């Protein structure tokens, strides 16, 4: 059992949720609002107690990766729509 507090200014809820989901087979993570922080209550999944420390470390790194993914996704949304418009336009080539 451990509590991990993350500043909302730096870490967004979506990234923490996605990271938690990725670890659902190893950790049970419940996220709550705690003022200007996100509070994560983390328990190991049965059978994964021995590597709990290791999993927590990986989980933290995963949060950072999810932040990065969110950044990329948001930044590239307009151009993604542009590409899809091309893909479904009538003047395109058939590969």
């Amino acid at each position, binding site marked *: 059992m451990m509590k991990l507090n993350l500043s909302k200014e730096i870490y967004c809820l979506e990234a923490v949720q*996605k990271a938690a*989901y*990725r*670890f*659902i*087979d*190893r950790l049970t993570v419940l996220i709550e609002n705690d003022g200007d922080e996100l509070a994560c209550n983390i328990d190991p999944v049965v059978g994964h107690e021995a590597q709990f420390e290791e999993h927590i470390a990986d989980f933290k790194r995963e949060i950072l*990766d*999810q932040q*990065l*993914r969110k*950044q*990329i*996704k948001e*930044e*590239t949304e307009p*151009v*993604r729509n*542009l*590409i*899809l*418009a*091309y*893909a*479904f*336009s009538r003047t*395109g*080539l*058939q*590969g």
Partner: protein
Amino acid sequence: MSKFSPLAEYEPQAGQYELLPFKFEPLGDGDVVLTNFVGEFAFVTRGELQDTVSKKLKPGSSTYGLLRSRHFIREQGDAASIELLGLKTRTKYSKLRNFTNLHIFVVTLRCDHSCQYCQVSRQSENKAAFDMAADMADKGLEIVFRSPNPAIKIEFQGGEPLLNFDLIKHIVLQAKKINATQSRDLQFVITTTLSMVTDEILSFCKEHKIYLSSSLDGPEDLHNKNRPRPGRDSYGRFVDGLRRTRDVLGYDAVSALMTTSPASLTRVKEIIDEYLKHGFDGIFLRHLSPYGFAIKTKSYAAYNVDRWLDFYREGLDYVIELNKQGVRFTEQFAALLLTKMLTSNDPGFVDLMNPSGAGIAAVVFNYDGDVYASDESRMLREMGDTTFKLGNLATSTYEDIFTNEALLNALEDSFTLSAPMCSDCAFENWCGTDPVFHHAMHGDVLGRKPESEFCKRIMGVVRLLLERMKNDPKAKEIFMVWANRC
């Protein structure tokens, strides 16, 4: 004073580039693999990934050039990259509008084998109970030719389909008659153990260019253990049937698939050697199917993906070695994934498509006229679960079948781009969705990917392929040839 300008004149200014959509996944060795909008990939270090996103990547550096030419970033004025990404996306999805290609007719459930993992065979001699009727088959053909696909494949399954060869003949002749005015590219395949093959059967197959798809699980002891039949001679009959079939139909008219059982997991090299011995130029190292095992032997629970991945790695590395020694031999599961990773083609493999291949790529007509969204759906039915039954040939129209809520919900809810974890996954472009498997194992069409054997298996194999391509240029050469064969 030179009238030529230096390279620096043509390099973009620092920090001005724009990101194109891409995803990433950490690799075991500390590096990261990036995949772009259409699944092209590049290996970079963590630092380079960070620099790329924070716009610190230096123009003129080799990573910058690589990411720009492979469509991970673009500069103002790079209009061609958008056009090209749109084109490649279009190519990847172009086969979708052809709709259903594979139509499976389960012509009988009777079989001379009683394979450990099979959930469908019936030993009964009661033909009426377990054979498909001709009028049912005719209705099936009506559905088949409603498909807009210019290429139609009709596959006969069972039990042992050759036990109802009269119906096969009927269907083939009838299909060709209908096709005379439609000119589809029509192909026929019979999946059979070859134990029941006769000269008459071979002669008909030759006349109508029917392919045979058989089974070879490995060396004789392994094969016979998996596939008991009266006489305990499944292997022997296969070898004999193979020779006779090749004689009449031609060398390449018969292929072999293996079924993996727990006993196979430690014997992959012997299994591959067995395929070499019988002159096959490839093998499909299949995963353990959960359906039959779950009922019959209860050993599926004991099997886990890590053991299978060890089996697969050993097998793939052995096949790579063979290729390096000049033996032309393909591992076909890798080839499927590699086609998606290295080209814009879609191999059209039903079990690895998004949206799911269920209905869209394949449909199954069971012996009793029931229609299923895929082969797996039918197997699920044998376990008592008819979730993916789409109708019955006697009572359902084409529209009833293909707009059935069961199908549409499965397709929609399992769509990877809307799925947790899948939608962010760097390998999503190469993967697929398997609503039937996840429904069977997890109770819903998506499942929880972190717990999913399907996900672990695909990600495991993809990581292995990436690792080999990253570290072994010769393996990459071999893979490139495989990717273009599909």
